């Protein structure tokens, strides 16, 4: 409240001088000759902007003529301002010790207001407490739901929309300093990842691509990514949020600023007649992928996603369907590795005790100490199969002559032997957190020295990679 605020006391003109003693504690408002306007003792108009009638405490009558004026003012209060009880009267026409009595009367009124205000505030504080308690309970329930999801459902962000790249259209070129804006073709609730597609890596590795996700209606940027140019490769660039956007629906826009030294070329998808969705006049829409999750909740970051700036380093990573889909065959047998939409898993099919392997580039993120996931031989009958995980640095790919690199001590899990059609969880515990990005190898072989009549349907499902912070959980 403004320090200068005072309640208003209304007097008639003839009482104005007598009432001036009140100026210390109240604003004296004198009724004008028209019985409708009011002025302070200096003659300045007092109206609703100055608190009339809300701040009026009472009508103070110090002389008999004031009592007649009160009747008129009372009517004004009822008719013009809709105050059912009218304008209270403080009749001190017969007061002996006028100043003291008037002060006392005003003090009584103010005390009464103060008591009501206290009661109101107490009630409000009680309501806040109730709401806070409800909020705590709801947050707790939500956290439980999140934890359940992460544990049981192996939370996977859902790919909800793909605007496929069209190689037949010219790429959208960004020169150094260029900025473009792509409105996303989806509402914001649950948005968790955005993918854009690069035609090629920039020639120069210097500089960076800055991407901002903004919500138009709030006018706020909700996430920023800065990707160094040397990390940009041909293909999809996935930008991930640690927490999916909340349930409040708004228009999401992606703003890209290229701060590199050479040209950056982005893949287009299709032209669209609505200019709101074109990143540049006449240009087609960008090729896009959009993922969503439960609005406002956290899900393990995908290993192929770039976390936003200022987001806390993730404690766990999702090595999910998008990673499994891009797994490469590291076996000598062509076709040994195949992603299955039906099984939502990756087949790594051994024929004998020779290891069949799939490689997921970069799935071992720095900080990981524990990787686990489901495995199963997806057939009713057949030989037993052994499963294992292994990690090798990304640069090991180039040195490898055979299909598998040499795995360091502590970078390979124990072999897990399974009969057909039985699901189990496979774990790889690292004695030291990974210091740099590693490739993850998914290994399978037929147990014993038998040879299967056909490649066995050994299947790896989505995995979680945990850091030391949460690995104990």
């Amino acid at each position, binding site marked *: 409240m*403004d320090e200068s605020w005072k309640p208003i006391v209304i007097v008639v003109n003839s009482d104005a001088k007598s009432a001036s003693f009140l100026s210390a504690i109240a604003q004296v408002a004198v009724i004008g000759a028209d019985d409708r306007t009011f002025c302070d003792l200096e003659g300045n108009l007092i109206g609703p902007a100055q608190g009339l009638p809300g701040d009026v405490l009472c009508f103070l009558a110090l002389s008999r003529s004031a009592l007649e004026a009160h009747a008129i003012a009372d009517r004004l209060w009822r008719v013009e301002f809709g105050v059912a009880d009218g304008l209270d009267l403080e009749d001190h026409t017969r007061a002996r010790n006028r100043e003291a009595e008037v002060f006392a009367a005003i003090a009584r009124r103010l005390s009464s207001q103060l008591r009501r205000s206290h009661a109101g505030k107490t009630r409000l504080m009680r309501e806040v407490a109730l709401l806070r308690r409800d909020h705590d309970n709801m947050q707790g329930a939500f956290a439980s739901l999140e934890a359940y999801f992460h544990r049981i459902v192996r939370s996977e962000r859902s790919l909800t929309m793909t605007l496929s790249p069209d190689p037949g259209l010219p790429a959208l070129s960004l020169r150094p300093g260029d900025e473009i804006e792509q409105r996303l073709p*989806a509402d914001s609730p649950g948005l968790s990842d955005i993918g854009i597609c690069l035609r090629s890596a920039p020639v120069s590795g210097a500089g960076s691509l800055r991407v901002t996700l903004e919500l138009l209606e*709030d006018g706020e940027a909700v996430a920023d990514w800065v990707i160094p140019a040397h990390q940009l490769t041909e293909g999809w660039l996935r930008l991930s949020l640690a927490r999916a956007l909340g349930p409040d629906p708004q228009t999401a826009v992606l703003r890209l600023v290229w701060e590199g030294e050479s040209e950056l070329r982005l893949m287009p998808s299709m032209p669209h007649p609505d200019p709101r*969705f074109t990143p540049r006049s006449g240009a087609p829409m960008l090729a896009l992928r959009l993922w969503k999750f439960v609005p406002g909740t956290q899900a393990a970051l995908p290993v192929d996603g770039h976390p936003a700036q200022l987001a806390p380093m993730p404690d766990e990573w999702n090595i999910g369907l998008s990673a499994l889909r891009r797994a490469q065959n590291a076996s000598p047998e062509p076709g040994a590795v195949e992603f299955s939409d039906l099984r939502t898993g990756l087949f790594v099919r051994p024929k004998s005790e020779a290891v069949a392997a799939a490689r997921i580039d970069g799935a071992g993120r720095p900080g990981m100490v524990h990787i686990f996931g489901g495995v199963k031989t997806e057939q009713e009958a057949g030989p037993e199969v052994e499963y294992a995980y292994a990690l090798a640095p990304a640069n090991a790919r180039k040195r490898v002559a055979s299909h598998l690199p040499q795995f360091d001590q502590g970078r390979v899990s124990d072999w897990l032997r399974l009969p057909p059609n039985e699901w189990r969880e496979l774990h790889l515990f690292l004695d030291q957190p990974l210091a740099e990005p590693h490739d993850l190898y998914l290994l399978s072989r037929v147990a014993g020295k038998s040879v299967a009549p056909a490649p066995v349907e050994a299947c790896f499902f989505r995995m979680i990679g945990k850091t030391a912070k949460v690995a104990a959980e």
Partner: protein
Amino acid sequence: MSAEVLSRDRVAVVVPIYRHSALLIEAIESVLAQEAEFGIVLILVNDGCPFAETEATCLDYARAHPGRVIYLPKPNGGLSDTRNRGIRFALETFPEVEAVYLLDADNRLRPKALARALAALEAHPEAGWVYPNIDMFGQRYAGDYGGPYSQLLHAQMNICEAGSLIRRAVFEAGVVFDTSFRKGFEDWEFFLSAAAAGFTGVNLEDFGFLYRKRPESMLREAEREGAAIRLAMREKHREAFRPAMLMRLEQAEAPRFAIYLSDRDEVALSSDPGQETERLSPEAFSQRIWLSQSDPSRHPSPPFMVVATEAGLEQLEAAKMLHWAFWALEAAADQKGISALLLQPGSEGRAGLSQSDRPEGRQVLANVLMIRTALLRETLQDESAAWINSLASAACQPAIRLLELNLPPQSAPIAGTAVFSFLSMVQRLRASPWRRGAMMQLGWRKGDIAIREAPHLILRRELSDGVAYPRLRDGGRHVGILLPLIEFGGVEKVALNFVRALRSWGFEPHLFVLERSDAAISDEWRALVGSINFLADPAFRAWGGGQGAYLGTEVPGWAQDGAHGRLLGMLHWLDVVISFHGGAAAGVMGQLRRLGIQTVSSLHLSDLSAFGRPVGNTYLSAAYEHAFDYFAPCSHQLADWCHAMGIPQDKIVAVPNAPSFPLPAEIAQASLRQRAGRDPAEPLRVMYLGRLDAQKGLERLAEVMTSAEAPRFDWRVIGGAVMAGAPLPAVVARHVEPVLTSPEELIAAYDWADVLVLLSGYEGLPLTILEAMRQGVVVIATDVGAVSEVLHDGENGVLLPLEGAVLGCLSALDRLSRDRALLRRLSERARADMNARDWVEAVRPLAQRLQAGFKSAAQK
């Protein structure tokens, strides 16, 4: 910007409060949280809320934010009164406030909403207000109200939420909330008033306005009372719903036709094909089509596509049938999806059309093609173009109605390329780079302006859902001449003369043929009228099918129970409609009057039933007296009859018949000389000129001709049959000559004749008698209808009672043959009596009454 300017209050937010004591805080906080580089003053107007909490909350905030939050209590007066109070206070108290935002006490704003909205108002100086999309919380929903503002659409649905930022100028123009709207939609009414005052709105897509939606609310109550509120709105904004206004708005905001002119490779957008319009390249048009496909609620496209050549349209215009052609094609496309028009030179003096739903390949020759855009869009989504391409073959798969229109024979043939041009355009559209993208709905809000896809239906609603004739009012005085058919009858001749006279009084007449699809449209008709139109409604019948009668005349079924929309739609744009014995057309006259059109019944004669009882248009018009502004009988006698039948005198404006063509003075003199120089020893030249049907007493004529034959009498019988009937008597048939249509031919015929014989059973006031008398031909006629008004027995002709007419006629012929002095005396008196008879003067009283009607309407 200076600190002073930055800090001044540029926006006032008015929050009317009644019973939202608890939720109010969220609204207040959202205003206090506004991020803007200008001052915002918040005015809380307590509408006499009975909850003490409301005042307590308002006072706390006012005291906590003095000068920024102002509390204004008032007696309960309703939402409109409360908003007005707050607005008035804001504008009077804060002279620097540029705009007022109205926030309901249970709604919220996002932090940048007002800054963004004021910026939008600045960016659109032509806009009176900025309105939001409606993002709902509570019960979640997001409605898209984007796209160009349209007053046409706004009259049909509330597209502007009260939560709009409104420029001060709107209120200063006197626009306020109507306090009589207490049950809801008061914001809709407010914006209609603002539009009527000349202001428009602009949508701000990312406004940041949040609407609290609950299952029970004032809006819900309003929806329950919806019908009554809409009626009140229509009453108050009657002008906004007038067809002329709706047509004008349609032209400006949502043109009905996209006209691809294949010879210019351009697309013209217009509702009125005769008006200058927006023109687009095919590429720009393609983008519009695809834009509309991707989001029809935001992006309009004309509901019909037309393919033609500019030359073809010019030919239609020259034939005075351009607007009618578009109207007829639209009606056909409505039913079939596709319609086509084939133009071909017709017979001399005739115009007509035929329609077929099985063109069997003839559609390929069409000059104009029209397709519903909705159907076009469906075909563009087809995997294969085979279905639509079959339009170019005899085995045409799409349903199509082909109209074949006969133009004047001198019309140059125009190659029919419409189908091929259309298919070429379809191919272009299908090959468009926009096609794939446009199939995807990318916006996340739900488009809530469904009517943007079919704005042409708005005007139709005012016309009993009839197709609205695509013509704008242009300030001229347009008069519709309604005739059931046009052949060579007297009523048609009278109508033609009416038209000529109306033109001289500054009216522009238009011809409407109601019952036939073929008519005798002479060059003179074509020259005198502004347009030629055929109703071509197989359901319309001037007579028949009725269930009841008035004064013995059947009230036609179509008049009482027919689907009037088609005719209403055809006539809505006129200022005056004159029915020339239009029969069942009387049934729409009341509706036309309610549209502000002056209605006139032109009356000529009563028909006779099979038993000789008078019936017909005279009685039917009396039945519909309430629906006609004026009655224009062709004679004073008929005028007296009208009054006697209960038509108020003030409504009766006689337009006495006059000769149907002018007789130049020199020709009149030559005719006089020629007649004076005739040899009295020559046979008496006797002529019948007129229709050869039962009305005309042909059996009596035959009897006379049999007895009064050569060498004393020389006969000519000139005329044609209009209606099928009994065969002509042999003696009559032997003398029949073809119909004469041109004034020159008629003058020559009257010059030849000494006597004209007309022994009709019933008549009005035949033009033949007047024309004959004007050239000094002595008329022998039966005393029927108003003949006695001009023909006075023994003074200027021979008037015979119907009973005994044959003997009377023979006697008169004998007398005249023998007494050429009598012949001469009667001839001279006949000529003198007809001298002053003139159509222009005859029409004057009616023209003056109609013009007075325009002035009176303009003053209202």
